[in-house]
């Protein structure tokens, strides 16, 4: 059996989640912001799989399956929203997309 403790996986997941937060907060390109959200979803998936394997419970992996399905549909809908935005204002800079701001 492996000797890697659970904490290592959780720390890796936390670091990747924080890098995703940095990307969402600092980048201005809408597509890269979207990719950072995918990175955050993946880091949560990692901690779910780690808990599932360490506690011997299958529910974590079932939840990861559903998270991946939701992430796929979310990526499709979000990218089509970006395409529709790009058609109206010819940019993906999220600072210039402020028509919903009052």
């Amino acid at each position, binding site marked *: 059996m492996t000797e890697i403790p659970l904490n290592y996986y959780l720390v890796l997941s936390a670091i990747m989640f924080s890098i995703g937060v940095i990307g969402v907060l600092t980048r201005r390109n809408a597509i890269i912001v979207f990719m950072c959200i995918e990175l955050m979803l993946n880091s949560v998936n990692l901690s779910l799989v780690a808990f599932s394997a360490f506690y011997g419970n299958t529910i974590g992996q079932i939840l990861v399956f559903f998270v991946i399905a939701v992430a796929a549909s979310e990526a499709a809908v979000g*990218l089509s929203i970006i395409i529709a935005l790009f058609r109206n204002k010819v940019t993906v800079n999220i600072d210039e997309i402020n028509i919903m701001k009052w």
Partner: protein
Amino acid sequence: MNFEIIFFFLIAISAIASSILMVTQRNPVKSVLLLIVNFFCLAIIYLILHAQFIAIIQILVYAGAIMVLFLFVIMLLNLGNESQLTEKMNHRKLLAYILSGVVLLEILLGLGLPFGHGLVSINSNAVEIGTVEFIGKSLYTNYILPFEITSMLLLAAIVGVIILAKKKFQ
């Protein structure tokens, strides 16, 4: 320091490095490729955790389908010349770094580190749990309702994408 821990650290460091490079990269296409590298590293970690089904799904769905969608949209919008978006705002960026550091600290404290969970070895039936047979059996018996709702979600996503992305009707 046995072989497995060294291997884990190698994969973990490459995952973190590729995600940092993904965030700091100016060119969106390179950013997508680095994110694919990160997903492959995660798939290897899933294999270390004996989650074979999730590892394969990770490569098939994430690295295969979703990232191709991202690449396709980047090339459709022709964003190559827009890689130099004006990103000045140094005070806001500094605030963002501080907030992300606080988030990391909060997660680590929430996990109870440096003591954390006392678990040091994988559960003995983890090998059985990760197989396609086991996951499929519980997906089609205990979790049949969420599974069916997922199909409705995908249908709604398909319809929504077609309506959002098609040309405006007069």
